[in-house]
């Protein structure tokens, strides 16, 4: 009888294991990751690698939008929001077998807050200048004290992947569900399940279920869709509107529209004084009236309709209406009025000469907009903007570059005039935007890493962002961030264009995916995702 029971159990296990134990998930990244160091991540591809490999103390549940324990079993915030104390999960090991201790937390936080690292994540913690104090309170408990209160402090740790202080593998030793095992630049990244991953499911089985993940570098969205249709990839994390419509007619169960996302499509002008662009052009780009005129001359409704097949909404400001609490409802939608745009430009010493807009010295207003190649929505937006601006006498040259070249120009050489890109928001809280709004931030793209604010309004933005980050009162924070949004709208350092809907596609073979509006939309619970038996057996 006992033998029969054992046989029955063995049979059941054999039946179940192929459903969950094996399988390779394939999906595409649209560029090579800019960095594999989890502390310096500031692009989408690197963020994906960090999310899949990095272990964090606490994780924001993308569906409930509540923090959940991960490497920390408990945490406590001090009343002044300056100190957070974590109780670390015992018995956790890095992928290389080295134990996870408070030393690793201290090492990670010290590295993150090192000003020389220029970490965008570190900027979010920087509500005031000064060092942090780290104290191992007792075995397995560590407290981190910041120089000034940091609002939403615990939530920020969702983006801090812990690094090993002692491992010789450096960032290759990870605590997340997967380990990077192979990387062929321009081709693919191979991730294997982390055999030392600490998390288990309700039946006691070690997670993740998937054996491997392949991230294919694929800029071309058409090819990505073709590969999805062929079954070569199982997920499209950010789907274009046109493709969404097409897939919906073919297999409606495989496409998901989670509604307006937190992400924004923006265009901005390079205002950095050390950039190699003509002085007279820099003067245009630094003029608020010029930027406002460009913004007013762009037909956002057409961008939504033609570039995104209606799967987007015109942007009003830095915050998507999907972010209900932080969205400043007082901001009025940006009107499309080319007459008003010309009036603004004329007031700013520009003039129209036989249909060509010229500045006060007679230079024709011409500039280039760079964007990344392979993103059809963005390329269409660029073409629409080009024609909108041609209508007010401005000649725009469009340049599509591969992502690494674009990043190189944006962050190192600063050799560009205007840029059209998307801003990805992974968090609802404005603290996650510290690196954008602080004038010292590396992602203060129009004029990054300023030693002192270049303008009065940037100085005010610094004060407002720091103040909201150090205040506990949510309503007061809201008022402060509303003012940030107003300044952003008045000065238009970023010209906000549209908020795309969170569209995604997930093959029917994938189990456990629940697409949501927050990034990463489809694989936010990657460790619990698996492939059906048919896929696993292939």
């Amino acid at each position, binding site marked *: 009888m006992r033998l029969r029971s054992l046989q029955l159990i063995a049979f059941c296990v054999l039946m179940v294991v192929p459903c969950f134990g094996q399988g390779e998930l394939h999906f595409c990244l649209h560029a090579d990751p800019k960095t594999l160091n989890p502390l310096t991540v500031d692009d989408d591809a690197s963020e994906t690698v960090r999310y899949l490999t990095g272990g964090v103390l606490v994780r924001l549940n993308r569906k409930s939008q509540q923090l959940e324990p991960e490497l920390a079993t408990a945490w406590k915030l001090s009343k002044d929001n300056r100190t957070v104390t974590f109780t670390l999960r015992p018995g956790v090991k890095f992928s290389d077998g080295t134990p996870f201790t408070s030393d690793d937390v201290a090492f990670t936080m010290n590295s993150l807050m090192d000003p020389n690292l220029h970490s965008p994540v570190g900027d979010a913690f920087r509500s005031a200048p000064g060092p942090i104090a780290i104290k191992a309170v007792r075995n397995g408990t560590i407290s981190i004290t910041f120089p000034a209160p940091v609002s939403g402090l615990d939530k920020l740790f969702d983006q801090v992947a812990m690094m090993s202080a002692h491992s010789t593998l450096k960032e290759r030793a990870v605590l997340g569900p997967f380990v990077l095992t192979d990387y062929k630049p321009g081709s693919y990244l191979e991730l294997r399940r982390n055999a030392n991953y600490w998390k288990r499911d309700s039946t006691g089985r070690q997670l993740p279920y998937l054996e491997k993940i392949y991230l294919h570098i694929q*800029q*071309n969205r*058409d*090819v990505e*869709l*073709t590969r999805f*249709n062929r079954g070569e990839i199982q997920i499209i994390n950010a789907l274009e509107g*046109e493709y969404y419509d*097409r897939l919906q007619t073919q297999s409606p169960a495989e496409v998901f529209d989670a509604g307006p996302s937190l992400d924004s499509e923006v265009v901005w002008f390079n205002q950095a004084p050390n950039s190699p662009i003509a002085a007279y052009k820099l003067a245009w780009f630094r003029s608020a009236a010029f930027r406002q005129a460009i913004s007013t001359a762009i037909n956002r409704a*057409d961008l939504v*309709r*033609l570039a995104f097949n209606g799967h987007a909404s015109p942007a009003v400001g830095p915050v998507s209406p999907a972010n209900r609490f932080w969205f400043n409802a007082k901001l009025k939608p940006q009107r499309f009025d080319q007459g008003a745009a010309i009036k603004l430009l004329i007031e700013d010493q520009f003039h129209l000469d036989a249909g060509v807009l010229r500045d006060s010295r007679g230079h024709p207003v*011409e*500039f*280039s907009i*760079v964007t990344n*190649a*392979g993103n059809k929505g963005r*390329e*269409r937006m*660029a*073409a*629409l903007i*080009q*024609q909108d601006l041609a209508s007010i006498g401005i000649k725009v*040259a*469009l*340049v*599509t*570059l*591969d992502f690494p*070249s674009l990043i190189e120009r944006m962050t190192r050489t600063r*050799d*560009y*005039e205007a840029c059209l890109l998307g801003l990805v928001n992974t968090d609802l809280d404005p603290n996650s935007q510290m690196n954008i709004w602080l004038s010292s931030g590396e992602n203060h793209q129009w004029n990054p890493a300023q030693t002192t604010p270049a303008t009065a309004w940037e100085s005010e933005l610094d004060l407002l962002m720091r103040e909201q980050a150090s205040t506990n009162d949510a309503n007061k924070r809201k008022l402060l961030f509303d003012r940030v949004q107003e300044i952003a709208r008045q000065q238009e350092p970023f010209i906000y264009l549209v908020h795309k809907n969170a569209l995604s596609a997930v093959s029917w073979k994938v189990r456990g995916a629940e697409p949501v509006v927050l990034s990463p939309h489809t694989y936010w619970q990657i460790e619990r995702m698996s492939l059906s038996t048919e896929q696993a057996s292939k």
Partner: protein
Amino acid sequence: MRYVRIIAMTLLSVIFGAALLAPTLAPSDYAMQFREAPNSPPSTRFLLGTDELGRDRLSRVLFASRVSLLLAPAAAAISTLFAGVIGTVVGYLGGIVEKVMMAAVDLFMSLPWLFLLITIRAMLPLDLAPVVSVIVTFTLLGFLGWAASARVVCAGARTLRSSMFMLNARGQGCRSWRLIAFQLLPNLRLVLWAQFLISIPVFVLAEANLGMLGLGVTEPLPSLGGLMRELENLPTVPLQPWRLVPIAVLAACVSAFQIIVSGYEVEV
């Protein structure tokens, strides 16, 4: 065969004539966006329909033919010229010279030209006019695309150098340069034509791919390669077969060239 050649010549004349007269023949400006009519099917207003931004496809095909069918053959001529000179001389000389030169050609082919192209793009201003960008691109293609053809030409020259007419000419005291110019090259013209014709569609498509590096034809100027990028979206092609027009124009052009040239060779 003669009638086929006449048809081919007529077709080629029509395509090149239409391309040259694009500003006159095009129903609208290639950049004009009829935003109220995106993705329209063919109609009396838009004979080939419109693209996703409402631009008239016929106008864009006409201007794209002008860009691609004039510049791609020019680039193909440059690369074939290089291939012809290098391949013929090296093939004629043979021996150690051929070995060294072919090794150099192999090295040239294996070099990562992508980095050179990225460097060139970095050196060029971003607000480069579309016309300048396209001329630079095709010139680059012409100067970089000769190596594979040179190998083929060299192989042809090697075969011919010990042929009877060459021995005869050498026996009559012909100098090397005369042997190459008046004996070898005329007999290699079929190979050279083939290389020239093969290069045209290759360069048209290469131009479209160079758009990824910020080279090539930039918006709103169309090119055949750029228009053919729409075919990457394969599932829509059966639903909108008029998207095939750019590839049909290119195929017709190359085929017509081939028929004319082969007919000429038969007569010779």
